[in-house]
């Protein structure tokens, strides 16, 4: 073997020899996402692993996504919808349905906040996407990560990286997206409305509720059973009070593990050639539209409920109907406090917030049933 051959082989096996401009752009994006997650703390638990695996897969010749590569096996958990379901188990274990059970009309606010899903579905169809792709884009409006990934992996797997990044980015940007819409659609008088303290909810109610939800919704939409089933199982682990160790594991260790795996898997699908297309920008725009319309839907329905109840419901809690838990509820609390310093809306806003999780699951179940995947 001559010196020239050795040097040529060495060069061809170096990443520099196969580096493309698309990979350069993607590495740039991954660095921005790393900055946002570490420097600005925007959804760091998910954005950090996504950004880092985005960086890794866009380094040439690493073989990470090839058939025997690490990410090839890891991403199986997303394509087979394992990670979203198990993350929902953890979210269920962390969720307190108390505020929702104390004020069941919050469920309607959660329903109104799904408006963005369907409006965006129409717009996306009009923009030339297939109905399956349009459904996957629209679900961003539900502001629920696992539901978005579940539906997209099932209906439009090729759009998964773009839609997942868009969904989590907008969820991280809730504090920037929602306040202007809130100020646009509500008056200071409405925002300063104080709500009555919620009634106490018994343990029995909290135990019966997840079982009833599962029986009813999964008989209606069996397609959503894996996701909603895990969510309600997680909640039952928490509320039953007899399996504290399992509840603790679901809330902490398991949740952290699958969040990491999910982030790595999504990031591993963001290779430059697939990601850098015009469609990416269109999907990001449509995702923002979905998010805004969902917030508007919740706020307008909140205003309606405010009128019907003669001022007993603060319309702000409608904005928490998007399922970005608990960020959207915090925004309602912050804006309520700004209008009236003695206003405590957090627990009231948690009702529509968790209703939004159920609402987005129902919306996803409807779309899955219509497009005949199961």
């Amino acid at each position, binding site marked *: 073997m001559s010196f020239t051959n050795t040097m040529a082989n060495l060069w061809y096996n170096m990443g520099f020899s196969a580096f493309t401009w698309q990979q350069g752009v993607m590495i740039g994006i991954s660095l921005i996402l790393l900055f946002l997650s570490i420097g600005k703390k925007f959804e760091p638990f998910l954005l950090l692993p996504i950004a880092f695996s985005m960086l890794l897969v866009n380094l040439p010749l690493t073989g990470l996504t090839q058939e025997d590569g690490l990410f090839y096996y890891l991403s199986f958990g997303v394509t087979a919808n394992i990670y979203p379901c198990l993350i929902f188990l953890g979210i269920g274990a962390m969720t307190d349905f108390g505020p*929702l059970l104390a004020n069941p009309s919050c469920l309607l606010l959660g329903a109104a906040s799904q408006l963005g899903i369907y409006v965006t579905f129409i717009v996306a169809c009009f923009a030339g996407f297939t*109905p399956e792709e349009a459904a996957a884009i629209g679900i961003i409006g539900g502001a629920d990560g696992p539901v978005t990934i579940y539906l997209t992996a099932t209906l439009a797997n090729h759009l998964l990286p773009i839609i997942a990044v868009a969904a989590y980015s907008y969820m991280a940007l809730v504090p920037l997206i929602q306040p202007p819409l809130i100020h646009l659609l509500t008056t200071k008088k409405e925002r300063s409305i104080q709500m009555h303290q919620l009634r106490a909810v*018994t343990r029995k*109610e909290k135990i*019966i509720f997840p079982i009833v939800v599962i029986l009813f919704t999964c008989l*209606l939409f069996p397609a959503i059973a894996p996701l909603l089933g895990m969510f309600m199982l997680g909640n039952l682990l928490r509320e039953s009070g007899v399996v504290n160790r399992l509840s603790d594991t679901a809330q902490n260790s398991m949740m952290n593990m699958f969040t990491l795996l999910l982030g790595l898997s999504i990031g591993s699908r963001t290779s430059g050639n697939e990601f850098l297309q015009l469609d990416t920008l269109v999907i990001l725009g449509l995702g923002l539209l979905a998010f805004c319309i969902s917030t508007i839907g919740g706020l307008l329905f909140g205003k309606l409920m405010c009128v019907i109840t003669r001022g007993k419901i603060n319309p702000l809690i409608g904005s928490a109907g998007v399922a970005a838990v608990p960020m959207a509820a915090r925004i309602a609390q912050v804006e309520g406090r700004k209008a009236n*310093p*003695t206003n*405590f809306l957090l627990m009231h806003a948690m009702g529509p917030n968790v209703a939004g999780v159920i609402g987005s699951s*129902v919306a996803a179940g409807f779309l899955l049933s219509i497009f005949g995947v199961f």
Partner: protein
Amino acid sequence: MNIVDCTILAGIGILTVFAVLFVLSIFIRLISFTVNLQNPWKKHAKASLSGHGNLQLPAIPNTSCGLCRQYQVDDHTAAMVMAIVAEEMNLPLNEITFISIREVCLQEENHI
């Protein structure tokens, strides 16, 4: 699928979500009604609420949150009291109902 079909599908979709969640809200009311029907706590709570209602205490405007009345206690102190009670009872705050928080001065304590 044309735009009309998409619109019809979307309309049915949002109506379905509303219908499902409305039915769930009815289920919640039924569960609450059934469970609280034989719940002695409720009667006890009602009795204790009415008992507090008879107290002649001075009302201070703009210092109350919901039904929790604060008497000569600022928001910060009230929040501290709530947090301490929750910690001592080992219960989350949303499971405790505070009817009123009032400052007990030393003179009153001596009377008691």
